[in-house]
């Protein structure tokens, strides 16, 4: 058994750095490259793409990433684990297979495809069988929005990924795996951790949580002493260097920018945290109040002490549904009296929307440069000073009627000529109407979700 396994995080979301995967594979020794592509509503975007073209429905960026690391995978034994499969893991695998050279060396690429998380085609069957898929936030049964559902996927755990690796895969492509399972699975596979080694599984989950957002644990978006963080242009993405006992070091490749420190790792640990006593995953419940962090040298943080306990008998399900339309428009007003002009423009706009008889579920006005990020807290801190050099008026509407939202988008531009003075910033043109795809979190019994692993 290996005594150290190095899992590198190379993508924090779909849209993250295109160069990071290659830098992780070429910048030093690693065993696994972990790529997380899926955010809450990504699946619905992919579902729409697959409806237009049955060969789509996966994270296309992954193809470029694989192309950039193919030599490392085929020649140097680096394995890749990614949830890039989206709603169509087999099509994703086919696209990766097409990248490999033909002939004998093609055998060096063994792709495992994990399916079974997609519940869209089974929703009616599940509801009829007594699974209400109630919204975890408000308790409403899914039947209330059933006709608007675009995608429905169970968050699956490490088991099928471990199976793919045991069957010799060096690329594992999943759909809606949890982000953390992508890191924990290879550790479980390498170290032979059992399905009830709760503390070790929890340690793997914590390692996953730390590196799943890419450079956000290695100096990116780090508030602590941010001015002193070096060379973010060449920021190093994180690596978890794990030992069989479940302890691990968070580090990054030598010669890269950014910083791995106790504060940078702590900021990532608390990110998107709920109750720290129970970080619930399909494999284990991790207790974040047991985590110990220690400085272990430059850009090295040692993580230990992690405790876990048995998982629940439920899986979380991520459901996306159509929930109307929205549009956001903006104009920029300059000194003098920038805020006063923006406020007047907002009143005029709202009066015109009223006169047109347009009704929305919500109209939201923000004054960017004044209160868009901190609201009244910022206004109170600024006191009587209203001498802003410029203020951006930003107005958003949402509602169920597309035509009304469309009409709103045509009421912004006229203000440039028929509203308050010293206005600019309309070069981008008319705002675009977006369909809102909302998120519906639910739970389902584990036993109704069967995953399947195929080597292709």
């Amino acid at each position, binding site marked *: 058994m290996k005594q150290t396994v190095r899992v590198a995080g190379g993508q924090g979301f779909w849209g993250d750095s295109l160069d990071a995967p290659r830098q992780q594979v070429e910048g030093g020794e690693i065993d696994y490259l972990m790529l997380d592509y899926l955010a809450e509503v990504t699946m619905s975007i992919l579902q729409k793409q697959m409806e237009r073209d049955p060969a789509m429905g996966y994270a296309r960026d992954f193809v470029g990433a694989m192309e950039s690391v193919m030599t490392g995978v085929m020649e140097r034994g680096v394995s890749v684990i990614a949830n890039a499969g989206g709603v169509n893991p087999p099509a994703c695998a086919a696209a990766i297979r097409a990248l490999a050279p033909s002939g004998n060396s093609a055998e060096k690429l063994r792709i495992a495809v994990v399916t079974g998380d997609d519940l869209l085609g089974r929703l009616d069957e599940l509801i009829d069988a007594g699974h209400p898929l109630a919204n975890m936030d408000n308790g409403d049964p899914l039947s209330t929005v059933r006709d608007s559902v675009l995608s429905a996927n169970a968050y699956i755990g490490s088991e099928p990924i471990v199976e793919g690796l045991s069957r010799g895969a060096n690329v594992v492509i999943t759909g809606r795996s949890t982000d953390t399972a992508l890191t924990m699975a290879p550790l479980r596979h390498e170290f032979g951790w059992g399905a009830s080694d709760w503390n070790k599984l929890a340690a793997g989950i914590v390692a996953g949580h730390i590196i799943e957002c890419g450079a956000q644990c290695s100096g990116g978006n780090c508030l602590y002493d941010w001015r002193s963080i070096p060379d973010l242009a060449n920021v190093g993405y994180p690596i978890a260097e794990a030992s069989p006992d479940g302890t691990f070091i968070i580090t990054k490749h030598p010669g890269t920018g950014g910083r791995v420190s106790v504060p940078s790792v702590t900021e990532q640990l608390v990110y998107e945290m*709920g109750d720290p006593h129970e970080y619930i995953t399909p494999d284990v419940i991790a207790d974040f109040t047991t985590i110990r962090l220690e400085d272990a040298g430059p850009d090295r943080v040692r993580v230990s002490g992690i405790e876990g306990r048995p998982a629940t008998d439920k899986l979380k399900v991520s459901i996306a549904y159509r929930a109307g339309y929205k549009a956001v428009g903006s104009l920029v007003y300059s000194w003098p009296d920038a805020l006063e002009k923006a406020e007047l423009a907002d009143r005029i706009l709202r009066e015109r929307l009223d006169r047109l008889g347009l009704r929305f579920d919500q109209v939201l006005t923000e004054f960017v440069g004044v209160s868009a990020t901190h609201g009244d807290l910022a206004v109170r801190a600024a006191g009587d000073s209203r001498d802003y050099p410029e203020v951006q008026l930003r107005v958003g509407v949402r509602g169920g009627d597309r035509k009304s939202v469309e009409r709103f988008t045509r009421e912004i531009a006229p203000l440039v000529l028929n509203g308050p003075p010293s206005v600019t910033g309309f070069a981008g043109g008319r705002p675009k109407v977006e369909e809102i795809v909302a998120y519906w979190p639910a739970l389902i019994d584990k036993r109704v979700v069967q995953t399947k692993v195929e080597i292709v």
Partner: protein
Amino acid sequence: MRLHLLDVAHARSGDKGDTANIGLIALKPEYYPMIERLVTADAVAGHFEGAIDGPVERFELPNLNALNFLLHGALDGGGTLSLKTDAQGKVFSTALLRMTIDISQDEARTLGLEPLE
């Protein structure tokens, strides 16, 4: 003596549906007990009064010298429904660091802290 949380803590925030979470981390381990004592769920709810619709929950992580706050109903519906610039609660972190706390001169001296003015 009055201090900004910015002088004694750093923070990161994010979202879960319509709930914003803020992890508040002591800049030095010796500041943590004071932060834990003064930055209560009620104090944070008061700080954000008018900006959030629901209650505030607090969890302690003394192992990380950190507190985790859940601000329910903070994101105008959350995720893709929200029309806010900060629909995902990314800068609730620094909004919390605007909060002020009052400590005695003695405690400030012990912790090596300078007053706000």
